[in-house]
């Protein structure tokens, strides 16, 4: 089974075409915004280490988003086929709506096995607690 190296949610990600290095920009862990808000684009980035036995296997990576009003009815799924020692999964999301101060929870799983959670605390600009 693939072992998770890291999982973060950020504004954007790039892969350097020359060196294959990954850069993650503006990791989102809290948002202080005018509500309601539609998140333009966020990206969930995970890196997985593979073992020899994983090579040639297919896995399904899923991110379930909860903690918001109109949360996605189903997890966002991405299938990967393992070729080398390491595999990255990048899932872009647009249109997530946040109506009130909340904690957005993004749960990462592989083949239905939970692996990690990233949370984003969202507060309104006029929220007296923040």
């Amino acid at each position, binding site marked *: 089974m693939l072992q998770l190296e890291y999982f973060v949610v950020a504004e954007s990600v790039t*892969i350097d075409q020359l060196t294959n290095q990954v850069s993650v920009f503006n990791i989102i862990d809290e948002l202080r915004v005018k509500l309601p808000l539609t998140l333009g684009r966020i990206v969930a980035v995970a890196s997985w280490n593979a073992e020899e036995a994983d090579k040639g296997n297919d896995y399904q990576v899923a991110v379930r988003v909860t903690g918001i009003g109109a949360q996605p009815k189903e997890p*966002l799924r991405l299938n990967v086929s393992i070729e080398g020692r390491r595999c990255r999964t990048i899932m872009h999301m647009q249109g997530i709506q946040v109506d009130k101060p909340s904690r957005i929870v993004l749960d990462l799983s592989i083949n239905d096995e939970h692996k990690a959670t990233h949370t984003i605390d969202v507060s309104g600009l006029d929220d007296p607690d923040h």
Partner: protein
Amino acid sequence: MNALERLLQPEWEADYVASTAEALRALLRRSPEVRQIREDYDAGAVTAATLRQFVQQLFATSTADSMPYEHALAAIAVVLEDRFTDYSEEYLVDLARVRTARLAMASRVARTCLRKRSHYAKTAAKSFVVDEGNVREMRFSGVVSYGGEATESRKSRIATYQV
């Protein structure tokens, strides 16, 4: 004489003789010329167009029976092994596909490079739109990649210093 031109010198070819593709690749990786070409490629001083033209020159010298600069072709494969551009993929795959005696070693080196290259991290990506709780997959919009191959009109000069 630049590093690419040095690959065409008979004495250079004589320095890099090996009986297996693995061994030749290992020798070439240590070659100052290969290192220099890789640095030039990263900096944009050598572009995909430069390499393409260079390779065409090499093939122009070949005959039905011989390929005088086979090790130079292998050297380019080694340069491109850990560079992840469209041209590097095209070059390695094309050279690895060749099945002819006059290019046997270069082709085997390219296949070795491709095998090593498969150890690098692969990226799978997908885009989703969430609309009132409904999830829709978008046609993949791509991972934004920077640092692509420099073209003649868009070159970057990058210098790295060690202090």
